[in-house]
């Protein structure tokens, strides 16, 4: 970034902002007057019986509209019925639940392996969130093999597809570092809502079940009650927990946890962090600081695990990029694979950033966090029924 670009940008923003404020004031004037803020809850008297409380829209601007008549409300209730779906979407729904079924069943119905079959396979991969590029790559590899080995048998073709998918997942070391100088520290990072806290709870439970002593660091000081959530997991897992004040410094929480683990000779420290979107630079900076804390507190950094939600689409790539650049991610935990989502973005992440998927979450129970097995994963993706 050169100063020339900064100058340009500042000027452009100034231009946009300066001009647009005029529009802003105008539209505000045009819009309904904002109501004074409501009295604090508890101070408003209950509506006297018999009085119809009017449904006058009090909001300003965009959503305001004429007062609805009771008929209109009834109409809305009717509208709430399940909409009639276009046939293509209904078909899409069926397919989305089992992306490969249609393509593969088609294969077994066909006499020869036709071009349209490969199109179907590519579609199935796309529907599994593999992404267009990876899907094309996998299909090309499978196609090449079918051509080279003169495969005509549908079962063998299916094997070629599986082999191509497995090949994409075959270059990674999926081991998890738990041994070494105590305390070994694992950090869990990721965007909001992917299941970091739950994953830590499960890991803690499994580790303490293996006879290790575990310390949890509730370094998510941002989300309301995140520490409480982790605290409940600590109880279940019989783990120690260090928590900070809400809104406190997350790095300080981790520092305390590591120091205290060192003093007690605890085996492992699991650090929860607040969910952050990867395009928020200040939050990524904060994460870097948390990361540096491990060294400062003389912890033995074992793993930095990026927790990804299996439902994530192509944005998963951006997440992997930014988090790995910021804190040197050592592995991915793919959660919520028990839903209808397939987590196919894992292919692109392993291929592009060489970050291996190390664990997957396949259910709500503690034992449902398991090591990632590429073979089982590929088979479940391409299951026939």
């Amino acid at each position, binding site marked *: *970034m050169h*100063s*020339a670009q900064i100058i340009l940008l*500042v*000027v452009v*923003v100034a*231009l*946009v*902002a*300066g*001009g*647009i404020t*005029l*529009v*802003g004031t105008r539209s505000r004037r045009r819009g309904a007057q*904002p109501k004074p803020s409501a009295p604090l*809850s508890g101070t408003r008297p209950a*509506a006297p019986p018999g009085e*119809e*409380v009017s*449904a006058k*829209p009090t*909001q*300003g601007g965009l*959503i305001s*509209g004429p007062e609805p008549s009771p008929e209109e*409300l009834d109409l*809305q209730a009717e509208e*709430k*019925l*399940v909409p009639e*779906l*276009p046939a293509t*979407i209904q*078909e*899409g729904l069926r*397919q*989305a639940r089992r992306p490969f079924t249609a393509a593969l069943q088609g294969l077994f119905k066909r006499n020869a392996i036709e071009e349209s079959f490969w199109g179907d396979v590519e579609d199935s991969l796309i*529907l*599994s*969130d593999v992404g267009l590029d990876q899907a094309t790559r996998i299909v090309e590899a499978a196609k090449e093999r079918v051509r080279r080995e003169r495969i005509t048998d549908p079962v063998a073709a299916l094997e070629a597809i599986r082999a191509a998918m497995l090949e994409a997942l075959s270059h990674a070391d999926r081991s998890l570092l738990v041994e070494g100088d105590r305390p070994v520290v694992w950090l869990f990072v990721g965007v909001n809502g*992917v299941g970091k806290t739950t994953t830590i709870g499960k890991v803690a439970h499994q580790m303490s079940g293996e006879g290790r002593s575990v310390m949890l660091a509730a370094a998510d000081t941002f989300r309301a*009650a995140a520490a*409480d*959530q982790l605290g*409940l997991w600590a109880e279940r897992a019989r783990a120690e927990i260090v928590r900070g004040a809400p809104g406190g410094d997350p790095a300080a929480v981790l520092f305390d946890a590591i120091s205290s683990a060192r003093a007690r000779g605890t085996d492992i420290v699991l650090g929860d962090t607040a969910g952050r*979107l990867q*395009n*928020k*630079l200040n939050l990524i900076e904060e994460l870097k600081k948390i990361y540096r804390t491990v060294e400062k507190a003389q912890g033995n950094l074992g793993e930095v695990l990026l927790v990804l939600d299996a*439902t994530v*689409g192509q*944005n998963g790539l*951006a997440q992997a*990029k930014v988090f790995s650049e910021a804190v040197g991610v050592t592995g991915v935990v793919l959660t*919520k694979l028990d*839903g209808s*989502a*397939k987590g196919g*973005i894992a292919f692109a992440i392993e291929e592009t950033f060489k970050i291996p998927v190390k664990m997957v979450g396949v259910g709500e129970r503690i034992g449902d966090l398991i090591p990632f097995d590429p073979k089982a994963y590929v088979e479940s993706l391409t299951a026939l029924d």
Partner: protein
Amino acid sequence: MFDNLSARLEGVATKLKRKGRLSAADIEAALREIRAALLEADVNLEVVRRFTDNIREAAIGSTVSRALTPAQHIIKLVDSELRSTLGGDSFRLTFASTPPTVIMLVGLQGSGKTTAAGKLALWLRRQGRHPMLVGADLARPAAVEQLRILAETAQVDFFSESSDPVSVAREGIARARSLGRDVVIIDTAGRLAVDSELMEEMRRIEAAAKPSYTFLVIDAMIGQDALATAGAFSEAVGLSGTILTKLDGDARGGAALSVVAVTGKKIAFSSIGEKLEDFDAFHPDRMANRILGMGDVLSLIEKAERQMDKHVAEKGAQKLAQGKFDLEDFLEQMQQVKRMGPLKGIMSMLPGVPRELRDVDIDERELARTEAIISSMTREERRNPAIIDPSRRQRIAAGSGSTSMAVSNLLKQFKEMQKMMRQMGVGPPSATKRSASSRSAKKKGKRR
């Protein structure tokens, strides 16, 4: 990594004829690019298919107007198809004639239901309503506690009890009625669409609460599964619309399209930040630009409005227009821009920012360095940089901890910018002209 659709189409467009009808082959080439762009934005494949079919239909036989390049013509078709899919108007919330109006939030785990509940409550309170939050997520540890804290922050009432979700909902509504609260927002547990037991529980909550509105809360980062998920929820309960969360990330949010296609209901609200007030009615037109990767100038404007000092911004724009923008004004503007957060974020919202600029790693410290240099100048020097001779330059460099080379670079670039602005003939900002020019700014984005 994130080529926008216009960039993709420019590639094809060089092959397209300049004017007249598009050939079938031209259209197919363009459709392939559209498909790729939509898939990259995580629009569901089936929806993409239907979408491209519609574009094909519209494109065949259409005449490219004299004013547009073939690529622009196709983008226009895509844009209007996107807008018509997403629905032109914003969602309108109406309130029950016999309060309370009951709103139920449903969705997958981690989609942001609890946070959305808190944000919706604050939003409603600011509209002069008296909402009550009801915590019926008894599954996730501490979810109720999270909602209680959010209720406190939003200064609204809260209710939950450790029984079962159905009775919590029923009790919550009864409580709201007796307290005279006019809106009840029920937060439910996250559930997978394939979990029939939990889906059944959700139906029971719906039957007990009889919500006027049931919103599906969905994460803007969701991929192909958006269709299956939204479809399953839509089959199970009567959805009234969707709340799209985490739109402050850089996900293109193609899921919005999938969800609307499968539920047939609008996106009602969107959540655009971490703070409780970062929540508003959804703007379908802005989403269209975003899915196409064409910047979101309107959101930028709103952000600017919220965080910049209006007077200073207007003054800056005026001075720019008059060609009187000096380093003094620049410093002022820069301090304003800094308040809007990291440059990279701002840049991602600007339409038509060249790729080189968008992909470049912005060193936020460069901003501080630039600021330091200008701050080390005297007022006189800022107004009239011509007086800066080598000895003054040295003083400025020493004062800002930089080199005299850096100082002269900055001065040179600033001069060039002034020249550029004069060439562009930036007009004076008037209310009407400005809204027209913001539209043309968007168009400029498309042309890129």
